[in-house]
């Protein structure tokens, strides 16, 4: 327990507190009066209102589109299911800087909608909402679908035998069992969209700003730390409230449900209704999730002399023209993999320790910690990045110029996922199994190796895989840290996009495609590991 607490205290709480204190304290006195001043400003009120309603609308839209998807992935069997499940998760771990331009290809001029309906949605609020669906589809599919797949269909069948209608049986049996999962997923989507940054900046245009965008503007651009501090505290309160509710629903979800092997609940679609549902879900996934990804790939191949691997080859050579990089851009792939591995190691160690501690103990305090571990997901990357700068500036913690800062920042985002994946599995290990092994003469080590490890290993791998994919795509905290000149993939993409010229643009698309492929590979591997795993965590 001490490990994770110390980790969060040093690398999260302390830097964030330092930057907030810098804004709210003058001459050693807290200036809480600033809350009133900032809140009275009409532009800030506008930001608060927009942040809230777009998050609510995005959440509703995501549920509307993704719940049928959750059902299809849970209950129907179709070829390529694993691949598609990995594919819909790719957006979730991709940085917005990469997807933004591809998403414009869907909604902007000459995009799919423009061609079909003459509809252009870029720089409208619809672009933001649909992009939020794009990024969060997987959250619903994985959280709700994961549980749905494990609900024993015989319960619903029993209700029907007893005379309930089809809808009635679903409403009274399945729905109550699913509600906590739906609520948990909705809260996570709300959290992610409430704190949305890149999507709003790239797709919304200058007319829209969320709280997170405003915090970035006030901190990084205007250096108005008092206003930034007030906004950070507001976001903290909002996110804290959401997380508290989330922790409650998660606990309800972990209450005894009769779960079964997901492999047994899924079957080939039957009847026109199921086929239509499958078709509809596949069509919406193709249009909303796969098209933007396909556009990236297409543009990476569309070279000066027709389609080919031109830009990929360019990535591997050092640019004799001079330019954005001192090393071939492909090095960014290795940098990213190194950073992501280090971040995964930290996240698994810290998250694993935290999950173990949370399993062993019960009580209000521990439950609070459960929610607390999720806080980094809801705190602005710029706050953490700038906090690092002023907090970690003295030995032994002068890490500002160190490479370790990047994986540390990435691990902060990875830990919550590790905890959420590990916790349900660790809680589900039956104490009696170990006792039985002991009675049969196994040493504690052997009991662990034969009983616990096989049960936990899978979750550990899944957690590591997810933390890895999330770290790989992490962009926010990475850009706010001054780094030695070893760009990660997202940073290299941003750098290439920041320069004129066809070759730069093409290489940016090629690097994005590589990033996407690596994420997809990690996630696909994860699907394999998950396999027919009986108990899996939320993601």
């Amino acid at each position, binding site marked *: 327990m001490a490990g994770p607490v110390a980790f969060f205290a040093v690398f999260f709480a302390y830097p964030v507190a330092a930057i907030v204190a810098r804004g709210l304290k003058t001459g050693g006195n807290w200036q809480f009066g600033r809350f009133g001043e900032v809140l009275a400003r009409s532009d800030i009120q506008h930001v608060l209102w927009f942040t809230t309603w777009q998050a609510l609308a995005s959440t509703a839209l995501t549920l509307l589109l993704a719940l049928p998807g959750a059902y299809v992935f849970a209950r129907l069997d179709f070829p390529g299911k694993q691949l598609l499940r990995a594919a819909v998760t790719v957006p979730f771990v991709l940085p917005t800087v990469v997807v933004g331009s591809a998403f414009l290809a869907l909604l902007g001029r000459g995009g799919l909608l423009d061609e079909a309906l003459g509809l252009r949605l870029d720089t409208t609020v619809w672009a933001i909402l649909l992009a939020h669906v794009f990024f969060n589809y997987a959250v619903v599919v994985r959280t709700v679908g994961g549980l749905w797949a494990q609900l024993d269909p015989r319960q619903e069948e029993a209700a029907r035998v007893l005379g309930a209608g089809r809808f009635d049986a679903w409403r009274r049996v399945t729905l109550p069992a699913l509600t906590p999962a739906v609520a948990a997923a909705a809260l996570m989507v709300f959290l992610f969209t409430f704190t949305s940054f890149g999507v709003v900046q790239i797709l919304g245009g200058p007319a829209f700003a969320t709280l997170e965008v405003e915090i970035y503007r006030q901190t990084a651009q205007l250096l108005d730390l008092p206003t930034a501090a007030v906004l950070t505290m507001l976001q903290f309160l909002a996110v804290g409230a959401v997380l508290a509710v989330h922790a409650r629903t998660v606990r309800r979800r972990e209450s005894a449900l009769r779960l079964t092997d997901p492999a047994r609940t899924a079957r080939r679609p039957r009847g026109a209704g199921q086929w239509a549902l499958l078709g509809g879900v596949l069509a919406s996934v193709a249009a909303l999730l796969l098209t933007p990804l396909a556009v990236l790939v297409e*543009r990476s191949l569309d070279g000066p002399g027709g389609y080919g691997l031109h830009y990929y080859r360019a990535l591997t050579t050092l640019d004799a023209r001079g330019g954005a990089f001192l090393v071939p851009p492909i090095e960014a792939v290795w940098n990213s993999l190194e*950073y992501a*591995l280090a971040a995964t*190691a930290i996240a*698994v*160690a810290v998250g694993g320790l935290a999950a173990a501690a949370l399993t062993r103990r019960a009580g209000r305090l521990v439950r609070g910690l459960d929610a607390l571990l999720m806080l980094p997901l809801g705190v602005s990357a710029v706050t953490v990045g700038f906090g690092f700068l002023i907090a970690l500036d003295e030995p032994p913690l002068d890490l500002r110029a160190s490479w370790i800062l990047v994986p540390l920042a990435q691990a902060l985002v990875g830990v919550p996922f590790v905890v959420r994946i590990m916790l349900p599995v660790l809680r589900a290990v039956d104490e009696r199994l170990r006792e039985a092994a002991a009675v049969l003469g196994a040493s504690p080590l052997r009991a662990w190796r034969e009983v616990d490890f096989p049960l936990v290993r899978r979750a550990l791998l899944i957690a590591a895989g997810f933390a890895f994919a999330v770290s790989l795509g992490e962009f926010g905290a990475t850009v*706010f840290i001054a*780094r030695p*000149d070893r760009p990660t993939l997202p940073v290299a993409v941003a750098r290439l996009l920041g320069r004129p010229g066809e*070759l730069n643009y093409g290489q940016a698309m090629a690097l994005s495609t590589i990033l996407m492929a690596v994420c997809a590979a990690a996630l696909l591997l994860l699907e394999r590991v998950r396999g027919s795993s009986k108990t899996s965590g939320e993601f």
Partner: protein
Amino acid sequence: MSTKKITAVVAATALGVGVLAACGGESEDAKSAEGAAATGSGSKTVTLVSHESFAASEDVLKQFTKETGYTVKVLKSGDAGEALNKEILTKGSPQGDVFFGVDNTLLSRALDHGLFTPYEAKGLAQVRDEVRLDKEQHRVTPVDTGDICVNYDKKYFADKKLAPPRTFDDLAKPEYRNLLVVENAATSSPGLGFLLGTIGAYGADGWQDYWKKLDANGVKVVDGWEQAYNEEFSGSAGGKKAGADRPLVVSYASSPPVEVLYSEPQPDKAPTGVATGTCFRQIEFAGLLKGAKNEAGGKALLDFLVSKTFQEDMPLNMFVNPVRDDAKLPELFTKHGEVVEKPATVPADDIAKNREQWIQSWSSLVLK
């Protein structure tokens, strides 16, 4: 209560440490550089802090090491404004020795916060007088200039048999309706530069009327240069693929040569041109940070930044112009670049006093 869980966790940690160690091994260079930086004033490493756009040829940095014995370590992050704000935040305990990348729009902010130790760099005599904005105190040293100008898509105007615009006035004319895309002055450095250009051209009283005309003429505002140039501007490689429909964009005077440089095969003529009457000149400075661990190395680095070697290397790395009279421009620039004779200027003091106010009024005028 359960040793098993503890063991599981120990295994996880062991795995973690193993991977960490593996990673650490590969980052040996970075670590040894830190070790050297931490040893203080006798150090052979000098740390340059800058924004994301800083770049220099490896050969040139090696030459610096050969001449002075110092190795340069570069730390970069964010855009110019963000990078400067980080220095202000860490004042007194800076991340490095020299900061590069404060421009004339932000200069007063840096100087008001007293970030820099005065130092008169060697070779300053060769630097053009009009860029030496702090010539009494030498807190900052000018390193490069760049012009922010409207770029046009040559093909569009040739196809339409329309003369491309040349001046700010032209941009508000009906024949250029719905053709211009600009960046948000509040979030983008070229966006702010263009706004300052219009203020320089029309004065503190006239610029708002001008922007009303631009607005009525269908100017489009997006948040950053990347979106404007790669997504909206029909003359860029990205814009062509995206089917962009705005042939006028606020970018840099150096963008056309760079378009040529990064095309394959390189065309004889740049696909884009510069409206030379719409330019605002940015001057970028470097300074020795107060509290620098390696002051001697920092001074040597400042000397080097205005040396002929570095100045001639700079154009093709950062796409900016040298400040030294005797630095030769690469052929690419002389062939495809356009000379900006009279860029609009606004005195640095005026910018300092009014910047936030101007951005506020501009936002409420144009973004609504």
